[in-house]
């Protein structure tokens, strides 16, 4: 009798429904598979080891941003400020290296702390003042953008640059140990890829197999029920925004290391792609909710499209059409059944 409960109940779904369910669950993965097949048929270089690691490396930054976005979505929120946080972190690590010749540890820690701080500000605005997330974090986005541009007076930061205030040449450079984060390789695998895969795995385990991870989901699933079950929901919402900020900052560090510059406004384009990746993730395995494996697959889809379409010489603007189409398709899979 007990065994019966655990084993799957007989699924009485008829054939048509089974097909629909199958597509709901695996549609996105099928689409990914299809894309890969098409690209490898049209281009024999597509499925080479080198290209695959390149694709993974190119999505590593977006994936980190998207993981942060996923956290905010899990608790039922939304964080539009991640792009500006990436920019701030990029500029901060650049400034620490170049203007202040700091050590690696400092260069890594300060941006992460800044990211956490931005998360706290977001949490204050959204959780405490109760401004709707979308709008509150939009305002923070403006502010952070302004702050990081004001700090550098609009200049990008690179090794031994002339100081913006005209006081000679900056003393520091982008040290190799730092550049390794974005450009290095371990066992012939790009370091950012390793970093990304490890973080995806850790976050997946965290979200699914730890108490705290489940409490995030509970908070997002039903704030009131979670509160009544004894979950300190406001604390977990705050954590989520802080994590969102920290992951964005980490993405900023990797970005700075990858391009070797503290590029102002560099994070702006990452917001949309990060959000798109997290949203595509909803549809993976029919999860219907934010999940980190889905987010990862979403980022892979976006990365593969960029890579493959560029190889096929499709102009970047036409790529946007395909990106939008994929997004609509994935979302239709998630939401169309929810009709009624």
């Amino acid at each position, binding site marked *: 009798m007990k065994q019966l409960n655990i084993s799957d109940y007989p699924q009485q779904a008829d054939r048509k429904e089974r097909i629909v369910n199958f597509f709901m669950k695996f549609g996105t993965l099928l689409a990914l598979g299809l894309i890969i097949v098409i690209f490898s048929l049209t*281009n024999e*270089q*597509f499925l*080479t080891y*080198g*290209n695959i690691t*390149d694709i993974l490396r*190119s999505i590593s930054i977006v994936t980190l941003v998207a993981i942060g976005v996923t956290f905010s979505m899990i608790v039922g929120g939304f964080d539009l400020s991640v792009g500006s946080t990436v920019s701030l972190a990029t500029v901060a690590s650049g400034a620490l290296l170049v203007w202040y010749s700091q050590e690696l540890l400092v260069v890594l820690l300060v941006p992460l702390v800044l990211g956490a701080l931005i998360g706290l500000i977001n949490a204050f605005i959204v959780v405490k003042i109760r401004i709707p997330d979308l709008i509150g974090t939009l305002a923070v986005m403006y502010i952070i953008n302004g702050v990081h541009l004001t700090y550098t007076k*609009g*200049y*990008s930061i*690179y*090794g*031994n*640059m*002339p100081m*913006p205030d*005209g006081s000679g*040449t900056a003393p520091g450079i982008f040290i190799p140990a730092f550049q390794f984060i974005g*450009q290095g390789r371990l066992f012939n695998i790009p370091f950012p890829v390793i970093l990304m895969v490890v973080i995806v795995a850790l976050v997946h385990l965290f979200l699914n197999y730890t108490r705290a991870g489940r409490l995030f989901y509970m908070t997002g699933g039903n704030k009131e029920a979670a509160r009544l079950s004894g979950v300190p929901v406001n604390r977990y919402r705050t954590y989520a925004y802080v994590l969102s900020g920290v992951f964005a900052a980490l993405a900023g560090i990797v*970005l700075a290391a*990858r*391009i*070797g*510059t503290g*590029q*102002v*406004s*560099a*994070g*702006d*384009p*990452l917001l949309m792609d990060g959000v798109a990746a997290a949203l595509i993730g909803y549809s993976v395995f029919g999860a219907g909710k934010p999940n980190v494996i889905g987010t990862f697959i979403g980022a892979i889809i976006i990365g593969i499209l*960029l*890579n*493959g379409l*560029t*190889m096929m*010489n499709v*102009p*970047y*603007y036409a790529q946007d059409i395909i990106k939008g189409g994929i997004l609509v398709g994935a979302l239709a899979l998630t939401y169309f059944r929810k009709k009624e």
Partner: protein
Amino acid sequence: TDQQPSSQSEEEASEETATEEATEEATEETSAEQTSQASDADIPAAVDKPLKIAAIMEFSTGTFASQYVSGLEAQVAKFGGEVQIYNANNDLSQMANHLQTAINQDVDGILIDHGRAEALNQGVEEALEKGIPVVTFDNDITVDGVTAISQDDYSLAWGTLKQLAQDIDGEGNIVYVWAGGFTPLERRNVIYEAFLEHYPNVEEIARFGSVSNNTALDSQNQMEAVLKKYPEEGSIDAVFAPYDEFAKGVTRAIQQAGRDEIKVYGIDLSDEDLQIMQAENSPWVTTAATDPAEVAGVQVRFLYQKIAGEETPSIYALDPSVVNVSDLPDESVTMADVGQHIEGWGSPNAARSPWMDALEAKNGQ
């Protein structure tokens, strides 16, 4: 507003060169004279006070724009004035608004950087009516009474492409990085199309490009894909990246893929670009550029001449130089001393009136 920018500008190009040479000679002579006998009395009253200058810019991202802004600020500061930067962040209507705001402010002179005539002509005319002189840089405004300086995108593109053609011996596969929507890039594209026609054995095998706030990284990722598509050594001979943000990304992709045999030909130069080009085994071998700080200096000086009531030409083109890494020394070079290595780089005395040294000296303390 119904002019034909393309054909006309080509005419301009030839005209410009002539005018510019003339001006240069003229100014050089006068400046040589004036250094010896400078005195406060010579400073025209109109400029002998702190002037308020407005600089209307279409965008200010990228190192070129940053150094251009520093150039403006430095030159105006030397003259004892104050410059207000109006940045439109790539929004032309905002740029038109900014121009209007500056006019309402009764500034003493207006500098315009980029933008399009159709959007700005009205404002420029209004400024002139109010007696505010205008000097433009790199756009197609042709209102009477305006001095238009340009870094001549056509020559820039031709300069670097000529070098490219020579290096690959007029034959080979090249990759083109380009995006529309920006006047300079569109102009450079005109020359590129002509170049392809001129060298039928040069084949464009891939084209990509997009301009965002993260142009360099986007170019890097896209170049990686192209490199993967053409993995054999020698399948790509060169990349033409007519904007330094493109060139930076492409260079990094090539370096990180270890495909140093591919050479990059860019346009624009900044301190950061110099560093990248001078790095060991850098694939970025050639760029064509003018010194942004100097462009700014010339523009400011023309404006002051106008305020002082002097004659100024309606057009003035700064001669771009082609910078080959091979011409540079081994030790690292900054923008300030590129001129010592590249012939014709910079002409610090362009548009320099006799009283300017005195004015600078007076505000020096």
